[in-house]
């Protein structure tokens, strides 16, 4: 079995050292380098052997984890990054997944789990534990509307076509009347029409309703 080559990127020396020590206990793991920020990582990647796995902290000076993820996806497709972060907020996890991280670990994760994650990712899988997966899903962005109108605008248009008043729409959608008014006038602008009647006609033509 080949040794799995790793690079650890974290701005805290103690953490880097601790993690490195932990990894080095395992004979099949080989920490190629430790870097303290994204910029240093990029320089290292340019010069040295590419690692199999990158253990990447998100909050780093100079270049943070997200930037690094974007860069790696472009330039070093073979390097599989696992985020290792203090953040347990779903947004961070979702963003990492979005930017192409293969796994997400909390910094206080047990040694066994870290090793499991590295193994799983090295073997072509992704590693997000159950708890994190749930958090990530909670934070996932909704499917973006491909329509010309936003979701809210489409809703308002639907109500307008049914003959509801601004006030009624506002109370149904839990928005202020001014919000409804603004949405309506934005729609008029977007569809280049002058009034609500024209708006509904054009929307029908465009099959927006």
């Amino acid at each position, binding site marked *: 079995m080949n040794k799995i080559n790793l690079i650890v990127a974290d701005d805290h020396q103690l953490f880097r050292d601790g993690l490195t020590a932990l990894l080095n206990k395992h004979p099949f793991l080989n920490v190629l380098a430790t870097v303290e920020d994204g910029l240093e990582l990029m320089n290292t990647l340019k010069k040295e052997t590419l690692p199999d796995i990158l253990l990447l902290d998100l909050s780093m000076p100079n270049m943070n984890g997200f930037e690094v993820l974007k860069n790696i996806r472009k330039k070093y497709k073979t390097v599989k990054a696992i985020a290792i972060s203090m953040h347990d907020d779903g947004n961070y996890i979702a963003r990492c997944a979005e930017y192409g991280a293969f796994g997400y670990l909390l910094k206080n994760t047990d040694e066994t789990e870290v090793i499991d994650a590295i193994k799983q990712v090295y073997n072509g899988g992704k590693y997000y534990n159950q708890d994190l997966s749930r958090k990530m899903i909670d934070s996932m962005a909704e499917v973006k509307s491909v329509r010309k109108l936003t979701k809210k605008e489409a809703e308002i248009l639907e109500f307008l076509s049914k003959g509801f008043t601004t006030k009624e729409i506002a109370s149904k959608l839990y928005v*202020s009347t001014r919000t409804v008014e603004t949405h309506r006038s934005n729609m008029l602008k977007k569809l280049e029409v002058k009034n609500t009647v024209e708006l509904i006609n054009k929307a029908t033509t465009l099959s927006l309703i």
Partner: protein
Amino acid sequence: MSIKTWIIIIINSLLFVVVIALSTSFYNQFEKTLNEKILSQLSSIERLKRVQIEKYLDTEWNRFQYNSKDSIRDFNLSRLQNLPFKIKTTGIYDFTPISKNGNLLIGLIKVENNKIVSLKTLSNKYVQQILLERTGMGQSGETYLVGQDYKLRSASRFLTNQAPYSITAKTKSVQNAFQSVFKTGIYKDYRNVWVYSTYNTIKISNLHWAILSEMDVEEVMQPLQTMQLKLLIIACSILVIALLLGNYFTQFLSRPLKTMETQLLAMANGNYNINMGKKTHFKEINDILKALNSLKESLTKAISFSHEVGEMKLDSNYQPKSKADVLGNSLVKMKDKLIEYQTKVAQANTNKKRILIEGQETERKRLAQELHDGIGPLLTSLRFFVENMNIDLDEKDKMKALIDHTIAEIRRMTYALMPPSLIDFGVGETLKTFVKLISNTTQIDIDFNNSIKTKNSKINTNIAISVFRISQELINNSVKHANASKIRISITEFDNYLSIYYFDDGIGYDTEKVKLGSGILNIKERVEILDGLISFESEPENSNVEIEIPLTHE
């Protein structure tokens, strides 16, 4: 001098002059007419008597000439010696000087060859009868005869006890008569009493008398005096009436003036709540009242305006009457200055709050980062250290659990201070996570509609922090106090503003009182420092908060 007195004096003086002039001229005219009337009447009476006497004497004389044979017998001729004149020719003679009782005695004498051949005396009887006939002569009128010796020939009505011949009447009228100066008028008579007097002379044969018809001035003047009194009474009445009427009518002028004075004084003393007098009959006074009213109104307006300015109600409006309206313009200027001042103070206040809140947030952020990025890694390093220790596994697990607990606490504190995702992902994502947390940990049906732009959002960190804090505060209120089972949050980003709409179906709150609650106060302050607008509406099962934050900057 008051207008009233002045007018009354003027009117009454004029009236007095007119009344006096009228009365005097009327009186004089009357007097003149009366005089003429009296004198003309007296004159005709005198003429009538004269004619009667002349006719009587003529008749007697004629009878004497034809029938005078023995008349001489009963008369003692020697008595003729006592006459003041000598009888030489035939004729009528005045024998009164030798009359025994002093009454009129007329002698008719016929002389032939220097010898009295016939003589007859006529007593006063008939003449006196003529003279005593006093029709049209009033109480004091009389007609009498006076001889050239100024002795009365006929009896006096007044001095009945005296013989006529003993009464001397050397008066002006008698003298005039004998000097043939006929000028009727008012003279003194033999009694030294003023009388209307007409006179003439009777000349028959040797008789030469003055005949006078006279009437007392006093009697004639009686009606004149009555009239004088009446005129006086009328004049006085007119004056009194004029005084009363003047007094009555001038009050129409003086009363409104007096009222105006009182009101002006009241205004001068600062009381503008006065009722300007009612309309009068006079245009000028009405005009003044109108002018006063408009003065009062403009003053009242200025005052109420200054009052409102004093109460710092700076939205009240005032239109100065003109450029010359110094008071109004000063007030408006004052108001503008106050508004300027207030705006400055408000700006300063808002700035202060902004600095305070931003400072607070900066500090929270710093603290959160220190905790999360400083202590967090230290703890994780410690955890590695423990993991690498060759100690009892149970002990190791206990220590790791303790460290994990501490890390969890650090995360909780970090989140409470400043959710890291707020900086890294913005308010929409952070709020979504927060709402999910609420949804997972409570029974509340909570939904967050995030319509924040994913590209080119104008929401900066300050706004993001405020919006998150506001939403957090509102959700906490709904969860902790409102007993809500449904919460809806909608945040929509438009080109120029951000709209936050918050709804819950909780028990509701008093929108007046709740404003004092520190949570709501914080929300309001945050909206204020972002130049935003906020409005609360609440009733049971339907409370909502609307917030708009302008996105003009950046």
